[in-house]
């Protein structure tokens, strides 16, 4: 009861404050008045009476304060008062406030943007029911060829997984790198769309149920089963107008009729992100003879992952035993990994590196702000000392300072969210399509919570120094002095600057190395002439082109039509292009001392003019000609790497591969995106070229499910409307075959190096930000010093010191801080940069040009940041400064 009454009375007091304040005033006035009257009655003079009355009352102000404490919620009232005071203080110093908020906005914004990607990739659940029960399969081997990575499997493994692992619902997809392009004929139109080939139960693993119709049955998923298709909601609406009667009807896909059996629900997301899904019909032959299926798993209820792993191990025991037999007893083990981790595995270290860089930015910002706040507190020493003298407790002063920090942190945090949002949008625009394996990256609650925590943490970090500084404040000397910067505080600020410069050096060196690596990749000899080449892709994953004769006819007619385009010098077709990934296959040497040896190699089918169109030099032997037809002697051309690796440099012309294919020539290497042994994003690789006309009927449909061949034309000068003319030329050979895209060679290069470019862009942006913040830090240090020491400098100049000496004296402070930071940063680099070894190509970790560039940049920035404020010294008028004393 009592407690409630007191609470109510206190609450009421919060709102009636003004009135109550007047009443208290009046009551106390009456008290003093009555006391004075009594004292006068006792014979005192008016003055004596008043003094005596006040003395016996005690402190009026203290009484009021005690009364107020009893009356309302002193903590709330005081907080409001502190907030108001803090806001006034901050508004009185707009330069300081703005600098802090801007710095925080940049630092917090960078962190928010990067963290939202971390959040989307690693923290947010996959958009499927019970994502924690979904997995992928990894294989781990120890020893000399140690690896631990996600695997694709072949048809035999798939059957074992499907039939002998009851703990899991398993499924496989046919495209190991997303959906592939196919042609869909709808009415008169031929539409180029993305198709995903999935096994039965794939959608069950994702726990997606068709909105209309059903999933693939197991019978439909058997080799040579019925051709069925499931449409995405988007395709069903946009192409077929959401027609419900479409179920059971056939559509013409890849040149064949497919029966539509289902439509996915709106917004359903699959890892393939395709427009249409067809049954994979996995087998042990053809595609299933190699590791071309990508499994995904769902744990059945009541089973653990340990049980599932044990079952997988048993099902594939023979495979592991074979591995051990051929690899000196190395143990191979299979295990399941949560799908989310498997899908983000490659990006994970890159994103975490960026997060680390963003953390550096935050520390640098903190160091800057701590320095600024320290200067500010020194400047406010007289004010704080006055408040202490008037009876404020140290705790109250501290609280006031922290409230100011809090306001700054929240303001900066809010601005940071805005900057982060913009940075994130910009970043997502920069990324190529489907680069991130997630549907969307958003600023959700978790990101905002992270931003709040980061902002508060920042305010603690940069608020700590000034708060500590006030604890040591000596009342008497502080009030007397005019707040000179003590030597220890200057050294502290210099240490802060040195620290941030050190971190900046690490970021600069790291981004410098990445830039060097990218330059190396982009400027290494391509092995062909990319200028004047335009290419176009079309999907031949089409029943009509399973027949080699039809395929040959298409190539002949389309190429000769393209030769007719005015300005075109050469036209050709190839299964893949330089800068792209090529098809991998095994090849066996048939004769000579290497007979019987089997290797993996890139295989590219080409038309005779491919080497002319790309200007790839032929080193030995001859090109293909029209005479290398289907009924002629099978011939191949290999490249320099192939010759070096498999024939140890001996001339291979005339040797035989794969029973009967004779090597007729050797061409130079070209740069391509590696598929065999990817140690760099762009490298040369052993390659075997075969005439397109000699492609056999088994291989032809298979390669076209994975690859879209490219039509290549070389022109001497730019040709107006070239791409439309190329499309018309193709249409003259097959009116229902659209090109899926046109690519210049520089466009392909950019696509292949997209990851590297993004890394360079992001890390350079971070390094630039760090550099900017460090520059501001050095500038602020020296500028404050000039402002504080104007008097001292004036005296020095009056006593005969030259302006130059004064400038060096003050500017030296900033230069020294930066110098120590530079040294510390280089020491840090020795350790930190080693972690980058795996992403550097053609450049060593300790790269002299990079280090030199970092040195020059920092020296230039330091000199710039010190000289601007130091030049102000020249304007100091000693007479005026001394008069001001």
């Amino acid at each position: 009861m009592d407690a409630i009454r007191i609470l109510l009375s206190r609450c009421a007091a919060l709102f009636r404050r003004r009135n109550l304040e007047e009443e208290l005033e009046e009551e106390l006035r009456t008290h003093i008045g009555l006391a004075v009257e009594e004292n006068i009655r006792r014979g005192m003079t008016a003055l004596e009476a008043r003094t005596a009355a006040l003395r016996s009352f005690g402190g009026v102000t203290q009484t009021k304060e005690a009364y107020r404490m009893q009356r309302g919620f002193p903590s709330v009232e005081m907080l409001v008062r502190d907030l108001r005071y803090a806001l006034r203080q901050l508004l009185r110093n707009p330069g300081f406030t703005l600098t802090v908020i801007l710095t925080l906005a940049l630092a917090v914004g960078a962190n928010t943007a990067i963290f939202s990607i971390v959040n989307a990739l690693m923290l947010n659940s996959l958009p499927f029911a019970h994502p924690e029960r979904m997995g992928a399969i990894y294989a781990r081997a120890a020893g000399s060829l140690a690896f631990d990575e996600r695997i694709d499997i072949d048809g035999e493994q798939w059957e074992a997984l499907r039939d002998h692992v009851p703990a899991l619902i398993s499924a496989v997809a046919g495209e190991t790198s997303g959906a592939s392009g196919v042609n869909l004929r709808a009415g008169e139109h031929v539409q180029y769309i993305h198709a995903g080939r999935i096994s039965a139960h794939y959608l069950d693993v994702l726990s997606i149920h068709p909105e209309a119709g059903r999933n693939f049955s197991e019978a439909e998923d058997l080799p040579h089963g019925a051709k069925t298709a499931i449409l995405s909601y988007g395709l069903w609406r946009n192409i077929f107008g959401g027609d419900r009667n479409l179920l059971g009807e056939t559509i013409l896909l890849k040149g064949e009729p497919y029966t539509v059996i289902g439509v996915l629900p709106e917004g359903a997301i699959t890892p393939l992100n395709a427009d249409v899904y067809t049954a994979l019909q996995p087998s042990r032959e053809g595609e299933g003879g190699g590791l071309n299926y990508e499994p995904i798993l769902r744990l059945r209820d009541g089973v653990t992952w340990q049980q599932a792993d044990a079952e997988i191990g048993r099902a594939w025991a023979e495979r592991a035993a074979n591995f051990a037999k051929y690899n000196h007893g190395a143990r191979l083990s299979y295990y399941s990994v949560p799908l989310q981790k498997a899908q983000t595995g490659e990006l994970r270290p890159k994103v975490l590196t960026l997060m680390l860089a963003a953390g550096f930015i935050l520390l640098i910002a903190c160091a800057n702000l701590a320095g600024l706040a320290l200067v500010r507190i020194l400047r406010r020493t007289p004010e704080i000392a006055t408040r202490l003298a008037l009876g404020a407790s140290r705790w109250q002063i501290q609280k006031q300072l922290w409230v100011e920090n809090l306001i700054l942190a929240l303001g900066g945090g809010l601005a940071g969210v805005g900057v982060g949002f913009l940075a994130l949008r910009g970043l997502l625009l920069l990324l190529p399509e489907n680069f991130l394996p997630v549907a969307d990256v958003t600023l959700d609650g978790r990101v905002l919570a992270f931003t709040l925590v980061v902002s508060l943490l920042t305010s603690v970090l940069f608020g700590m120094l000034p708060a500590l500084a006030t604890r040591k404040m000596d009342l008497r000397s502080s009030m007397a002095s005019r707040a000179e910067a003590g030597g220890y505080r200057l050294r502290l600020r210099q240490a802060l600057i040195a620290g941030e410069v050190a971190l900046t050096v690490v970021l600069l060196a790291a981004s410098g190395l990445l830039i060097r690596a990218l330059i190396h990749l982009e400027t290494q000899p391509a092995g062909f002439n990319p200028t004047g080449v335009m290419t176009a892709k079309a999907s031949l994953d089409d029943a009509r082109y399973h027949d080699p004769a039809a395929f040959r006819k298409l190539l002949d007619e389309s190429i000769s039509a393209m030769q007719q385009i005015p300005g075109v010098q050469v036209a050709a077709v190839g299964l893949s292009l330089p800068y792209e990934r090529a098809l991998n296959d095994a090849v066996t040497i048939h004769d000579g001392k290497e007979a019987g040896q089997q290797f993996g190699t890139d295989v590219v089918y080409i038309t005779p003019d491919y080497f002319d169109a790309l200007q790839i030099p032929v080193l030995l032997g001859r090109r293909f000609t029209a005479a290398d037809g289907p009924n002629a002697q099978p011939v191949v051309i290999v490249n320099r790497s192939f010759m070096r690796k498999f024939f140890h440099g001996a001339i291979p012309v005339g040797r035989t591969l794969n029973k009967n294919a004779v090597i007729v020539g050797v061409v130079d290497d070209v740069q391509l995106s590696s598929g065999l042994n990817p140690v760099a994003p762009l490298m040369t690789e052993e390659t075997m070229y075969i005439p397109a006309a000699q492609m056999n009927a088994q291989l032809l449909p298979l390669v076209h499910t994975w690859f879209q061949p490219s039509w290549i034309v070389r022109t001497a000068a730019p040709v107006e409307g070239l791409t439309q003319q190329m499309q018309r030329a193709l249409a003259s050979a097959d009116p229902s075959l659209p090109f899926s895209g046109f690519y210049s060679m520089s466009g392909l290069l950019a696509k292949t190096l997209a990851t590297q470019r993004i890394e360079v862009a992001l890390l350079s942006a971070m390094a630039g930000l760090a550099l900017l913040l460090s520059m501001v830090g050095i500038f602020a240090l020296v500028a404050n010093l000039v402002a504080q020491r104007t008097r001292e400098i004036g005296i020095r100049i009056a006593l005969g010191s030259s302006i130059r000496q004064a400038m060096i004296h003050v500017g030296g402070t900033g230069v020294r801080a930066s110098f120590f930071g530079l040294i510390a940063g280089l020491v840090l680099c020795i350790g930190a940069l080693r972690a980058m070894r795996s992403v550097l190509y053609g450049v060593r970790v300790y790269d002299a040009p990079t280090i030199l560039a970092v040195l020059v940049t920092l020296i230039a920035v330091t000199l710039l940041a010190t000289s601007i404020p130091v030049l102000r010294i020249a304007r100091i008028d000693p007479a005026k400064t001394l008069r001001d004393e």
Partner: protein
Amino acid sequence: MGGDHSEVLQGTLDLMVLKTLESMGPLHGYGIARRIEQVSGNALTLNQGTIYPALLRLEQRGWIKAGWGVSESNRRAKFYALSPAGQKQIEEETGNWERTAATMARFLAPSG
């Protein structure tokens, strides 16, 4: 401060105020303060101001009531009066004090 002056014990001021109002009837703050000083024979040094937070505390607990009136010298003053709850509180507190005093007396009495 003289050696025979003592500070008001924490918690005893409330009881003194209540007792004063019980014996004197409604009174303003100055009157209460003066009365306490007189009764204690000026043995207590009371910063007169300290009774105001105490008065507010007692009012919040409902032991006294407050209202504006006019003093003997025609000043507008806030008068305090004991409430029935305050009356009960005096009895309870007095009992407590007597027990404490008796216990203390036994401790302080020469043993034997």
